């Protein structure tokens, strides 16, 4: 679980800068990474679990900022078409 959290955290960090659908990938990977990292903190591999948890939290935070640029509370045709251009 700890190693899986680490891997998902890295993947989420890679995708969190990308707009539109790819930032959604970082949000999903990041949330799963947080779950596995939290559960992994109860096991022996606490270091890897903590690293995975921290990276996943950062990725979700950055992914949320990127996602909110294109979606979030914005019911805006201009914004969604700008995202579609990526």
């Amino acid at each position, binding site marked *: 679980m700890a190693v899986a959290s680490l891997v998902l955290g890295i993947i989420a960090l890679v995708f969190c800068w990308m707009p539109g659908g790819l930032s959604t990938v970082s949000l999903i990977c990041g949330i799963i990474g*947080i779950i596995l990292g939290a*559960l992994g903190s109860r096991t022996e591999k606490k270091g890897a679990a903590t690293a995975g948890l921290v990276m996943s939290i950062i990725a979700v935070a950055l992914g949320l*900022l*990127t996602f*909110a*640029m294109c979606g979030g509370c914005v*019911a805006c045709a201009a914004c969604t078409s700008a995202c579609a251009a990526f």
Partner: protein
Amino acid sequence: MFPFINIFSKQISTYGLCMLIALFLVTYLVSLKAKKKDVPGAMIILIAAMVFLFAMLGAGFLYLIVTYPIDYIISEIISGSFNFNIGLVFYGGLIGGIGGAFVGAKIARVKLMELEDAIVPYIPLGHAIGRVGCFLAGCCYGMEYSGPCAVYYPNSIFGLSPDVGYFPVQLLESALDLCIMGYLLLYSTKKNKTKGELLFEYLWLYALMRIFTECFRGDAIRGVFSGFSTSQWVSIGMILASILFKIFVIIKEARSKKEQI
């Protein structure tokens, strides 16, 4: 108002930033209280992540069903084109978030209702910060208004006229949410509460506040049915549910008093 700000030459959504601040601050405050009940911070983070996920899904789903006809939604999903504008409705987020909290608690193997005093008072805090985000983004705007404190949106991304003033309903809701938080923090110190009592206290208070503030909203896109907005109908449902719960608590207390005699 200020839908975007520049940080290190990168354009950042102010709404997203406010959501982030709300999520982090509420998770931190809840984890401080949960420590007193020997619940590790990592488990609170896990529950917060599930709440966030389910809240986003719930809020987006409710926005879809009040904005588009159901047959259009089904046909778009079947065809795979997903030609929707994205939006969020708070009540969908609240209901989704409550579901997410139960799922997260199940995964973390934590008794959620024992954390009721730790979690419920901070829900309106998160909402208050989110409403500031709405104010900055210019969404969830108020009705046209030219009195004191009228707000103008010179660079609105929602097509609002820059020459028309709007009621700052987002800031009103934020201030009332903070009042609800203060009341709930006091109520949480009450002894011998029934499980769920604090949650239903929040639900009926928020529902009452929402019925009031909806009268000052100007974004009818969220749906209006028989003179009431979607959120007002949900609020009426919440108040009815809270009344039923209160009756249940009264009957339960009366029965336990009878058994003691």
